[in-house]
């Protein structure tokens, strides 16, 4: 398959996730079904659009950290873009620099949580 990838950011995302964001035709189905979209600052299809045009500001958005990796978008995308993987790649571009989004020592009432919640959060918000 010939993949034409023009933005640097899209290239990086492709390397990490194997996903070609240019397959996305911006139909918005991912955003329509995303269960946490109300808490996001960008719609999932906007996240992918910013990657398409190579706008690195997408790395600072809140949406990629609110994404719960629920795979709803992944199973519904008519273009077979695995958006959950794109979201993960965008998180990893920050986490792999050693910049973490969670400090376990700072969690309030840490004893309230079962370990399944803490380990899952640690895996997603730290390297």
């Amino acid at each position, binding site marked *: 398959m010939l993949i034409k990838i023009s933005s640097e950011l899209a290239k990086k995302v492709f390397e*990490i996730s194997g996903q070609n964001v240019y397959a996305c035709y911006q139909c918005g189905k991912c955003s329509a079904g995303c269960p946490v979209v109300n808490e996001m600052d960008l719609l999932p299809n906007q996240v992918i659009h910013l990657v398409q045009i190579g706008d690195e500001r997408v790395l600072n958005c809140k949406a990629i950290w*609110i994404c719960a990796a629920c795979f709803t978008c992944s199973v519904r995308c008519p273009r077979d873009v695995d958006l959950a993987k794109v979201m993960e790649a965008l998180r990893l571009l920050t986490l792999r620099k050693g910049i973490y989004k969670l400090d376990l020592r700072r969690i309030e009432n840490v004893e309230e949580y079962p370990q*399944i919640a803490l380990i899952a959060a640690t895996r997603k918000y730290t390297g």
Partner: protein
Amino acid sequence: MKFLYFPGCSLKNYAKKYEDSALAVAKHFGIELIELKRWNCCGVVYSLASDSVFHCIGAVRDLIRAQEQVGETGNDKLVTLCSMCYQVLASVNHRLANDPSALETLNRFMDEEEDYLGTIEVTHFLTVLRDYVGFDKIREEVKRELADLRVAPYYGCMLVRPKEVAIDDPEEPVILEQLIESLGAYPIDYPFRTECCGSYNVVVNKEVVKTRVLRIISPLFRARADIIVTVCPLCTFNLEYGMKLASRQLHGKKIPVVYFTELLAFALGLDNVLDKTTLEIFKKYM
């Protein structure tokens, strides 16, 4: 019939009642779940990076432990209960089956263990019940009259997505409804049974979980749900925690949450494996 069994961390702690009830139900149907002699945390969430296999190591170790013990059951199946464990082990297994170089890298890295051959089949206890016991057999064994029990099945994400590892249709799963029906109870049809509970957001952003839970349970009051059944310790925690966070919006109303195995154990009359809180929930139907 014997199967290897991977419990995972939650089933030994927070979700002990999930394990207790599942093992009793399995035994009732002549199924022996043999716990792996050694196992470790699966990692809880499957890493979605395809340029690295680092985060697969924990899960592969577990698959190797299973491989070492397959002689004891005569089949390649590894049964899970926690849906997050299921999804991680099944996804890693799926990836390695389709990416020989990833498998080779991992095998080269792990020099203490034998090589993983990729032959273990990760499965879920629900699938075992359907395929090796059968809903008809379950129906015959029910000891209680549950026609008045209205049950909201909650699948969450990890048993039905992504497609490669889904145990049922990602959009229209039926396995929990079939099980509930076989027990003689009434499965409630509502739109949010496969919508995410907010998952790990609970640790950093509780509001997400509160909003999610309010939405998921919103149709269940009018539908007169008596209980919600779950397949996942994190879903269970989030549903209960979310209802607590939203107690003002809910005017203190709550819907009890139980694991599907607890409902099964109760229907089969295995009350001795149920804890006090669960028995209290079912009191009306005794």
